[in-house]
Every structure is written in structure tokens, then in C-alpha cells.
């Protein structure tokens, strides 16, 4: 662990209150707008590029997220501890929620196409008062 002096604001204030210039902000804003435009354009991409679009969207989302956090929220120019606190929250959130979504057998993309799978076409748990905790699963759901 570090000492007090070690986390004192060498990062934070060396350059800290020297904010980036207005021009920089305009450039960042334009960049974000461009990426957003690209994101929106995926809506009209052909069906065959669906998978590529998904990956590209995730990447663009991360880029935008990081850009806003780094420039608009000044994380890039601010003290390290702020970055740590925020990133810690994101990491914990990703870890627990990805854990939840994957560990649950109802992984939301379980290969069952729900549009074809019209309600009650599959065995669905019995009538409402039944405290059945489990809905149909793609497999491996036993005790």
C-alpha cells in the first residue's frame, strides 16, 4: 500500500486544473457524434452483417464510454484515486452481473427463438399459485 504522499495529487494537479482547451472539447464532441452516427447506421446494415454489427456496436459503446469518462469527466487529467473508485464500481458490476446472467441456466440467448416459441407452445410451469421456482431450461438444470 502507498503512503499519504504517494497518493497525493501529483497526477491530479500537475496538469489538473489546466483543462483541455475548448477546441479539444469540440473535437471530442464531434468524434462522439461521428461514432454515434456510425452506431445508428448499423440499424440499416444488411441482415447478414448482424453478428459483425453486434460486435462493432459493443466496441463503439466502450469507445464512447471511455471517451466521455476520460475527457468530459476529466478522469484522464484527474487524480488516480477517482479513476480507481469508478473503475472498481464498473468491474464489480460487470463481474457480478455477468456471473448472474451466465450462471443462471436462463442465459438470455439460450438458442430458443422466443418469437417462434409462442407462449404456451412449450411446457410452462403450472398455474399461478404453484410456487414453481424453475422455468424450462436449455439443459443442465438438474440438482
Amino acid at each position, binding site marked *: 500500500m502507498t503512503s499519504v504522499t504517494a497518493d497525493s495529487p501529483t497526477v491530479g494537479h500537475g496538469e489538473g486544473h489546466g483543462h483541455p482547451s475548448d477546441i479539444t472539447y469540440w473535437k471530442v464532441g464531434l468524434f462522439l457524434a461521428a461514432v454515434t452516427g456510425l452506431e445508428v447506421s448499423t440499424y440499416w446494415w444488411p441482415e447478414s452483417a448482424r453478428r459483425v454489427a453486434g460486435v462493432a456496436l459493443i466496441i463503439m459503446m466502450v469507445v464512447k464510454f471511455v471517451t466521455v469518462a476520460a475527457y468530459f469527466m476529466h478522469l484522464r487529467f484527474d487524480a488516480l484515486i477517482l479513476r480507481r473508485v469508478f473503475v472498481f464500481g464498473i468491474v464489480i458490476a460487470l463481474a457480478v452481473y455477468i456471473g448472474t446472467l451466465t450462471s443462471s441456466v436462463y442465459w*438470455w440467448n439460450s438458442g430458443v427463438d422466443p418469437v417462434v416459441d409462442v407462449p404456451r407452445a412449450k411446457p410452462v410451469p403450472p398455474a399461478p399459485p404453484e410456487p414453481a421456482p424453475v422455468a424450462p431450461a436449455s439443459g443442465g438444470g438438474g440438482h
Partner: protein
Amino acid sequence: MTDVVTAEEAEDTAQLGGVAEPHTPGPEDSHGIHSGHHTNTGISNEKLAMWLFLGSECLLFGGLISTYLLYKNRPGALIFKDASEGARAGSPVRISELFDIPFTSVSSFVLLASSLTMVFAVTAAARNEQSRLRLWLGATAGLGAVFIGGQVYEFTTFVREGLGYTSNVSSSAFYTLTGFHGVHVTLGILMLLSCLALTYRARRPPAEAIEIVGLYWHFVDVIWIVIFTVIYLIP
């Protein structure tokens, strides 16, 4: 009081730095306390608190997004368009098929633009430019209001098309997630207006407060970036 602005500044920041800060002069000075900030890290308590809070909010929105992802393709996550013509009379569609992507894209641009204006508000406050500050604060709040208006319009359209809050679990999850985000934006607008009001009460703008409100505002924008991609765009 016009002479030593710097002294005033120092006093103000000292107060911001620590509410209970009657530091005896002496030992601390040798300890590298940074100019004006009587804190160990040199970051004011309020700013650090806001970042911690935002870190915590990541888990809140993470939970809501996960809930939506878990439910969005559930069997039964279908609605029947134009349900007013009798239950299950219309054609079954998924909630995502109701999304009006071009419309929501405009909303996203608006919110993104509000982040940019917020940045300029923060710089104006730091440079002590009252009139520009008011302009940018007002613009940010206005853009936020446009976004909220768009959301209200979107919700009413969906409801008219038969997607009520309780139609199915995916619609509940959708409304809960976007509703929480909308409430956050609304609170942000209130904070911006409060800051705007404060600029009329004080000779110097509450720069630190505006910076912190700005952090909150950008965070709400960042969350929308995620929601827009994960909920709206990814098929």
C-alpha cells in the same frame, strides 16, 4: 472586496475542502497539503463523494440492465399490437420491434450534445465567466428537457401501441430501466437549474458545485450510451 480575489478563492476552496477543517497551521504545511485543499488527496470531499456515488450507481444500472437482458427474450415477452381490439388480437411482436431507432437516435444526439454544453459550463465557471456560464447551464438543462420530452413521447407511443408497464416482464423491465434513467436525468435538470439560480445569488459562480453536477450529468449520459447500444441497437 474586489482586491484580493485569490485570497477569497483560497478561502472558498478551503471551505469546500473540508467542512470540519480547523487545521492548525504548522505540521500540515510540511506535509504537502495542496494549495487550498486541506485534504490528504488534494481532491475535495464533495468531488470524491460524487465519484464514489457514481461507482455505486454503476451497480444500480448494471442490475437494471441485467434484468432487462434476462427478460427480453423470455417466452411470453411478446406483446400483441393494437391490443385495444381485443386481447391477443393483433400480431405478436417483440418489444424491440416497437423501437423507433431514428427517433431514439435523435434523443441520443441531444443527450450527447448536452454533455458537450455541460463541459463548456464547467469551463466557464472555472474561468469565472458568469454570462457564458448561465448560457451553457441553461442550454444543458434545455437539452436535458428535450431528451425527457422525447422519452415521454416514446412511452406514450408504446402504451398506445399496446405495450403497458405490466404487459409482460420484458416491458416491465424496459420501463423500469429507462424510467430510472429518466428520473436521473430529471434530477440532473433540477440540479442544473439550482446551479443556475445560485449563479444569480453569488458574485462568483459555485465552480466546484457545477463541476460536480457536471460529473453527475456526464454519468447519466454515459449510462445512456450503454442503454442505447445494449437495449436499442443490438438486435
